């Protein structure tokens, strides 16, 4: 019984009313392949393939002077994609749909980039505030706009991920809650619709995690 439309997202579990649902964040760790043997398993090879593709993507964005930085963004992608994707399974809590998690990921990254950039490369950061080729009279407004867009970056990163996850789950819940009062033909149509939505949600889960990682890479490359 749903007391509230958003009660699906409540992290309180039924065990002593403790917020144990947050433990689903650690589910992704069960899926990462561990190297117990010298010969990599099939899943380990698949994971290495995925991370190598991501590494090549991020390498181009970051430039050749920052070797090893792709590790952080690839593991950021892996954390978010496991949380998003496993949240689609029944009864699994989607921790990335909460602003607590997405802000906890986005805000430290952005603050770190800004502090590093403004303290160490001050002139570079000032130069970035005016895009190339703006006419002279427009420059004060461009600086204002670029500053505002810079300041809201952690907010947009966090809210984009959370809102996408919330929207998908909410739609599925809403459609599903009309189920008990429908006739047989309508129920079959509802089930087909829900399956299609689930496939869409799976795609959105992967895409949104990718977008998050790529954007944070871009913000990092802007600073250096």
């Amino acid at each position, binding site marked *: 019984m749903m007391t509230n439309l*958003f*009660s699906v*997202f*409540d*992290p309180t579990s039924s065990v002593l009313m403790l*917020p144990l649902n*947050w433990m689903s*964040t*650690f589910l*992704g*760790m069960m899926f*990462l*392949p*561990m*190297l117990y043997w010298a010969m*990599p398993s099939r899943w*380990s*090879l698949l*994971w*290495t393939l995925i*991370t*190598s593709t991501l590494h090549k993507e991020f390498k181009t964005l970051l430039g050749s002077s920052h070797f090893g930085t792709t*590790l*952080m963004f*690839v*593991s*950021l992608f*892996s*954390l978010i994609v496991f949380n998003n994707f496993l949240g689609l399974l029944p009864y699994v809590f989607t921790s990335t*749909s*909460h*602003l*607590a*998690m997405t802000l*906890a*990921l986005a805000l*430290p990254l952005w603050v770190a980039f800004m502090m590093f950039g403004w303290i160490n490369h001050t002139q570079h950061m000032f130069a970035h505030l005016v895009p190339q080729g703006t006419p002279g009279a427009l420059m004060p407004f461009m600086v204002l706009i670029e500053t505002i867009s810079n300041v809201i970056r952690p907010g947009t990163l966090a809210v984009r991920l*959370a809102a996408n996850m*919330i929207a998908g789950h909410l739609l599925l819940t809403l459609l599903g809650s009309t189920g008990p009062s429908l006739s047989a033909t309508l129920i079959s149509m509802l089930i087909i619709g829900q399956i299609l939505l689930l496939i869409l949600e799976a795609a959105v889960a992967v895409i949104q995690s990718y977008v998050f990682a790529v954007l944070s890479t871009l913000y990092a490359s802007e600073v250096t």
Partner: protein
Amino acid sequence: MPQMAPLLWLNLFLMFSTTFIVFIILNYFIKVPTKIEKSPSPLQKVEMNWKW
């Protein structure tokens, strides 16, 4: 809305940051480096006049 309730957000922030760091460490140790196949270069034959 449960998403916006700042309940124990500091503890949650510490837990998520620790989980992120654990993911980074796991990904570091999981990665199997790929071997690059080097094509065998033909032996360089330097023609020299053999004399003492």
